[in-house]
């Protein structure tokens, strides 16, 4: 990693096409270095659109997305990938490959047409595999992995990009409790090392324990932004999710805990 950089959305509006209605409207947020920012919200609230917007896969109607001081619109895909590592929500390989070769693809934003991996690249790859805890299956083929293992291997590839900003779309889907917790711990360590960590997630209670900042999306807009205590308000969440729930404060961990209720009657 070269130096730290914030990921900033300034009044960003995104749509699938020029004529389509926007799926993210006027979104503003700053995800700072050394912090975990969690983007939460119901299905279809525009969370993944923000990720696709960073990848330049959504026409951007207005606003600016900045990595550090640089506007993504004026950067090539390769330049963006040297600043931001994105782990998309889903990924299926057309052809299986060895886990180590797959993780090594994380270095491709930094390699020329003919250049081979340098010893520095190899060090970065090994470090990423160790931090994502996938060293044990480095020599396996990607089609021999469980859903949870595959998710961690994808995290290793994302870490191998070694950029100041990490952007992960639901990195803990398919993971059991132990793997989910260890993924959050890994991301927490990455943030402590000075990286900007932004994650889209559905597991609000867990996110509330790890995130420094939460962004609650609703209908393409930011419905609430702030510390987990600010955002995890029953009244706010009930309105956004359209479901009755209570928020308690777990005495064991000291973080707000969300409990959805059964439908009354």
């Amino acid at each position: 990693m070269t130096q730290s950089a914030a990921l900033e959305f300034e009044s960003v509006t995104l749509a699938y096409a020029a004529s389509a209605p926007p799926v993210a409207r006027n979104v503003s947020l700053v995800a700072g270095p050394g912090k975990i920012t969690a983007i939460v919200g119901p299905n279809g609230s525009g969370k993944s659109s923000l990720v696709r917007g960073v990848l330049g896969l959504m026409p951007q109607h207005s606003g600016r997305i900045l990595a550090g001081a640089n506007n993504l619109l004026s950067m090539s895909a390769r330049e963006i990938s040297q600043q931001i590592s994105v782990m998309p929500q889903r990924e299926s390989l057309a052809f299986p490959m060895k886990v180590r070769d797959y993780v090594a693809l994380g270095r491709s934003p930094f390699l020329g047409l003919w250049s081979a991996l340098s010893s520095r690249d190899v060090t970065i790859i090994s470090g990423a595999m160790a931090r994502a805890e996938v060293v044990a299956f480095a020599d396996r083929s990607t089609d021999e992995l469980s859903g949870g293992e595959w998710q961690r291997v994808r995290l290793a590839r994302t870490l191998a990009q070694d950029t100041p900003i990490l952007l992960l779309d639901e990195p803990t889907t398919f993971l059991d409790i132990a793997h989910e917790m260890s993924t959050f711990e890994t991301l927490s360590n990455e943030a402590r090392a000075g990286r900007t960590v932004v994650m889209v997630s559905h597991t609000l209670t867990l996110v509330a324990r790890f995130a420094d900042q939460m962004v609650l999306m609703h209908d393409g807009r930011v419905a609430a932004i702030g510390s987990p205590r600010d955002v995890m308000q029953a009244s706010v969440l009930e309105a956004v999710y359209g479901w009755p729930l209570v928020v308690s404060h777990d005495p064991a961990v000291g973080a707000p805990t969300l409990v959805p209720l059964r439908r009354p009657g």
Partner: protein
Amino acid sequence: MNSAGRQPWVLWSVTVIALLILVVASLAIGAVPLAPMDTVNALLGHGDDTAVTIVRELRLPRVALAILVGAALGSSGAALQGTLRNALAEPYLLGVSGGSAVGAVIAMTLGVVSAAAVPLAAFAGAVVAVLLVLSLARAAGGARDARTLLMAGVIIGAFANAIILILLADQPPERSRSALWWMAGSLADGSWPRVSWMLIYLSLGLALLLSRARMLDVLSLGDESAAALGADVGGATRQVFLISALLAAASVAAAGLVGFVGLVVPNIARAFGITRHRPLILSSALSGAALLVLADLVARTVRAPVELPLGAITALIGVPVFLLRLRRTK
């Protein structure tokens, strides 16, 4: 699937040895059979003058052309499979070869016969075919869907065959080779000028493909992940299509429509654990060469002196592989 016997080095060594044996066998077997040692001596310019002439002037150009055409078809298939994320892709089934043949036939009916220029006309035909196949697939539901794309390719291929039959219906055979020659494929007119031009186009195409090998690794992850790794997905896909079309066009101009080589060899390489595209493309070129030398040897020996159509032999090998692979897709 990467079991003990299926290591990359096993495939590399088996292919190299098989290719050497097949080359010597192809040079030795024919109307005048030669002993293997006499063949090798004749190849090196020693021994009986007649044998030297038979081996170096009559048989070697044909074998060399088989090697080059097979390498072009194999590497082009490996690259197309990577960029389309589809193990069933190859230039013949995608209609690229058919388009190349139409381009070549049009050029030859207009009087262009040079071994340098015909591949360029074939390339133009290949590009038109690619554009038609992609827009047909898009209209039918998605250019990224494997089966839709293959269907569009087969349709355009059939259309190309129809055009060739019509264009050549009243052409004297000495002007532009027969429609059967184009559609069945043949290495019978292997000559040194043709070999030299094929070598030039193959070297160019192979070098360009190898320089894009890492891009192909990234593209095979899917559009979003490829974009996340800094790939310009649209641009990269177009580049790989154009380079593969060039390789297919050169092979069609030299040997007509020879299908399935590009389908078979990359799948064999992957079964032996070769998955990164740089070794995959190289291995597919090498195995493609060996496969085509073998197919040509079979074509001209099984019912000698009758020569069987080369494309029919490769189809006999390729169709079962296609069916096996189809069962494993989705």
